[in-house]
């Protein structure tokens, strides 16, 4: 309904005053419970990745003979695997591998995608057409197949898997950035910036980029979750880090052999992956809302 607009402008007038920036602690307290929980999950996992030895006394790679396949007890919170390694310790030490992999993947996708989208959206014309058709063809190939082909080209290993996963997300970033740039470019304030003598690059830097970034950052958070999932998938298939590495996908794959006898070996790392992906999604949503 159209008269909605008027009532919104009424509200804007009422609100008139500038809201004061709240401190981090009060913002955390005011945040919805689900969001606070999501941040908590992410912070814990980040702490695991940074200082794993603070969280567990066991080694992430070496087992204790005679303690194979123990179910969860107080001693081993999440039980042990077929070689007597503490599963909780493996998950804590694995955080570093999975998170750094996801970080590299998102960085690759964000940087390349933003660059392509920015050039396509701001230059327009034939360059736009060529870049976006390339992006379309990237999107047409199933993502798992695409990352598998890239890994075959680059070779196995955590970083290579991360790069492959990142390369697949370039297309999504490029599309989003382009559509945002096209939207911002059409606005009066961008034209006004050109009108006051701004050069192409100055306007891009001062107006187009900052105003396009909110939803891009939201997508980056979302991609962070799905990158962890994709890296775990490739780890599970055996394209990632070699066996003793406690990477999460690999943990699930190893547990598969004991599915009937030791359910915790697949369930625990699986639940951790799900929680981190959900947390990333929740945070992404809040970023998107704050920008709107």
């Amino acid at each position, binding site marked *: 309904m159209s*008269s909605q607009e*008027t009532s919104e402008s009424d509200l804007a007038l009422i*609100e008139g005053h500038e809201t004061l920036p709240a401190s981090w602690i009060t913002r955390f307290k005011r945040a919805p419970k689900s969001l606070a929980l999501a941040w908590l999950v992410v912070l814990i996992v980040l702490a695991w990745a940074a200082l794993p030895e603070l969280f567990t006394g066991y080694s992430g790679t070496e087992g204790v003979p005679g303690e194979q396949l123990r179910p969860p007890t107080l001693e081993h919170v999440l039980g042990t695997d077929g070689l007597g390694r503490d599963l909780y310790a493996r998950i804590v030490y694995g955080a570093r591998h999975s998170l750094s992999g996801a970080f590299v993947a998102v960085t690759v996708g964000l940087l390349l995608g933003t660059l392509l989208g920015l050039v396509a959206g701001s230059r327009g014309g034939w360059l736009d057409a060529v870049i976006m058709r390339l992006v379309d063809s990237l999107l047409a190939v199933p993502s798992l197949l695409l990352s598998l082909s890239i890994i075959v080209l680059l070779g196995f290993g955590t970083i290579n898997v991360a790069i492959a996963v990142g390369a697949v997300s370039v297309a999504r970033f490029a599309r989003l950035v382009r559509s945002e740039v096209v939207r911002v470019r059409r606005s009066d304030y961008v034209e006004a910036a050109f009108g006051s003598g701004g050069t192409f690059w100055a306007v891009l830097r001062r107006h187009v980029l900052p105003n396009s970034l909110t939803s891009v950052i939201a997508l980056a958070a979302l991609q962070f979750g799905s990158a962890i999932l994709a890296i775990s998938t490739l780890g599970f298939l055996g394209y990632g880090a070699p066996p003793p590495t406690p990477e999460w996908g690999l943990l699930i794959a190893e547990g598969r052999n004991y599915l009937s006898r030791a359910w915790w070996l697949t369930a625990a790392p699986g639940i951790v992956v799900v929680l981190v992906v959900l947390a990333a999604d929740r945070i992404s949503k809040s970023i998107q809302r704050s920008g709107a």
Partner: protein
Amino acid sequence: MTAPLLEIDDLAISYKIGVHDQRVVHGVSFRIEPGEVVALVGESGSGKTTTAQAVLGLLAGNGRIEHGAIRLNGTDIAQWPQRRLDGIRGAVVSLIPQDPGSSLNPVRTIGSQLAEVLQIHKRGDRKAIQARVLDLLTRVGLTPAEMRAKQYPHELSGGMKQRVLIAIAVALSPKLIVADEPTSALDVTVQRRILDLIDDLRRENGTSVLLVTHDLGVAADRADRLVVLQGGRIQEQGPVKEILAAPRSAYTRRLLSDAPSLTKARPARGTLPTEDFAIVVEGLTHDFPIAGGKSKSFRALDGVSFKVRRGSTHAIVGESGSGKTTAARSIVGFLKPTAGRIVVDGIELTKLKGESLRQLRRHIQLVYQNPYGSLDPRQTVFKVIEEPLLNFEPIAAADRARKVRDMMRRVGLPEAFLVRHPRALSGGQRQRVAIARALVLDPRILVLDEAVSALDVTVQAQILALLDELQKVLGLTYLFVSHDLAVVQQISDSVSVMHKGRQVDGGSIETVFVRPDSDHTRELIDAIPGRNMPVPWTVLASSPDSRAGLSQ
């Protein structure tokens, strides 16, 4: 006396913002008798739309009626649930919405949308409904009805869409029609025809109308009684003639004095140098290619020529689609004309490109219509005004800051606003910031594209006074693009009247307004609302005590 059709009694409405309740309507009471037209007048934020929405039970999700009654035929409907209101909406009370562009479903024909309201209220079988649809379309002047019924909204102009919405509103012969700014998105000539149509339909059926408008001229011409709202409170109410002749509240007096009208000519100015032209436009023609056909194009401008004397104000007036904005954008160099010459400050603009065009931006600046869209929401006011300075020869940060502060003073904004973001400013304040940004490079020419059309009359009067002051102090030349002839007559020295890409009239304000050459100009002048506005003391009121004064 019979019972009133609508009686609003001590109505208070609040919106929930965050955790607080913000009251926007404070104890409003008024009544509408059968067959009467009551106009709810006020500026944005006065609560007029909120009050009208409450009558229909269409308050936004965070809105709540705190107390008071809305009595329709004696029954209080204020606390009725939505489901119960469905029975009377359309049948007893109906709405003509503000923006015809977004009020129709784009993927359904107008015939089916009109039939929908009849189906919902079960008025006859399919055949009867179809006949009634054609009858209604004919009645609102959309002929041939059989053809129109099969058209989609995008095939109709703004005025025709508003006719469809009116047909929907009157389909069930309601007792009361709430018209929420029914014509503010339309051109004056279209506005007049739409208001005439509402008048005719009202007289035929004896319907009452609650007319919500910011335009005192429209209210004066069309309403029986006025209710003047400010800040959610009624300032005064009574018969139109009485209020216009002798307004009792100070606020109504201010609204009357700020409203532009043909009776207020600008005071004559000193003689200007005769042959010094800041802008010369000769044979300006612009073709836009039409998507789909390579050789096809649409001629937006057709051989337009005019000259603007330095230090004077030239207006380009016309309805939407007349080519006035295309002309303005060509003159600031955003569009390359197909043919013709534009000379700005002795430099031929049409031959410039790249760096030399950028250098010319120092001399000619554009102020946009919508102050909500023309300022980057992420920049502070300081950054907005500073930015043009960064685009040319570098000057020291301290000098930039001094220039920005100087500009703030000139446009009458407090320095405390420098750290604010545009969203924390009102429309008028934003437009002042936009003017400051345009002036910070010391340009000699300012192109104002509908620069005051989006503002309330009071704010509009303040901005116009500011522009007048700046012109006197800085010797600026204005090119003023507008659809509003009353405003144009108030501030311009010369004028070009555009119609369908051609200049149909041109010359000094006196010649064009007193002895218009073309029928189109005459039609435009006749369509200006506000014939019933009083003359005598409005002239006195446009004195320089205006709140926009410079601090010099």
